[in-house]
């Protein structure tokens, strides 16, 4: 699943359907999922070190944390876009009015 996500994001970024800075968040998530498949090497020792007797719980915890980060990142991006959208729409309305007035003066 991690490899699939990783390749898909790389492909989308390559075709310019995904901006690089946005794809980084998803690539990190994909990488996290890939690493989680090497349970014997990383997850199991780490889980036991953290005192978790059931190692998959650590995978769920990391995945959950990564997805929360992704959602937070996109919420910030949406808020930012909304502000810019407002600014643009207000400027368009004001400039259209000015343009209309100029056309009327020319006539």
């Amino acid at each position, binding site marked *: 699943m991690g490899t699939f996500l990783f390749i898909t994001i790389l492909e989308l970024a390559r075709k310019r359907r995904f901006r690089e800075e946005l794809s980084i968040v998803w690539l990190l998530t994909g990488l996290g999922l890939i690493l989680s498949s090497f349970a014997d090497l990383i997850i199991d020792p780490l889980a036991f070190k953290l005192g978790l007797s059931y190692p998959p719980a650590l995978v769920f915890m990391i995945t959950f944390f990564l997805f929360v980060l992704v959602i937070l990142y996109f919420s910030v991006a949406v808020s930012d876009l909304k*502000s810019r959208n407002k600014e643009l*729409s207000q400027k368009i*309305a*004001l400039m259209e*009015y000015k343009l209309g007035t100029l056309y009327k003066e020319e006539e």
Partner: protein
Amino acid sequence: MKSYLIIIPAYNEEGDIASVIGDVKDSNPGADILVVNDGSTDSTSGIARKTGVMVLDIPFNIGYGGAVQTGFRFAAERRYDFVITVDGDAQHDPYSAQNLIDAMEREQADVVIGSRFIEGTYRMGIMRKIGVRLFSMIARLYTGTNFTDPTSGFQLLNKRVFSHLSKDDNYPLDYPDVNIIMALHKMRVKVVEAPVTMKEKPRGKSMHAGLRPVIYIVRMFLAIIMVLVRKED
């Protein structure tokens, strides 16, 4: 002579906009009138244009606060001395605008909010009533002044205030109510109330109908917290 701009934010108000403009023209003959069409999908803009007033067309709906702020920007660019905001749904009686002007001169205020509760009665839903009472209390606790109608959109603002609110995110997109009173108080702006007449909404759906008052109260609380935690500009 002092110049006044009356801003009428309107979203899908084709049924009322002509009568609102007519009343505003008759009641305030010396003022310029600007309709801010907030991405209406009906013929609000066309009807407003036919009356001969200035019309700004926002390409899509950005919300009440965004539309009012567009009007503030227009007023700031054209150096008006004062702006009066009147809703496009025929709820506000523009003949009361003189009360706002008189109160500003008398009290040497920067902003005057038109209150429907100082004189006369106004029927509203129970949730809306609770909201108004609650926010009145919060405004009184924070500013030390009694605001009977902090959710009123019928306001008079001087140049210093509307120029500030016209910038960036100084004016909220959706509900500019008690949070704005608090933010202005933080800026040491003098805000007072004056009696105005408001009519029951003749048609269409109020932005405070149905479940919306509950969502409105929650969002307003969040906005109030933001005013409290944000640094002064």
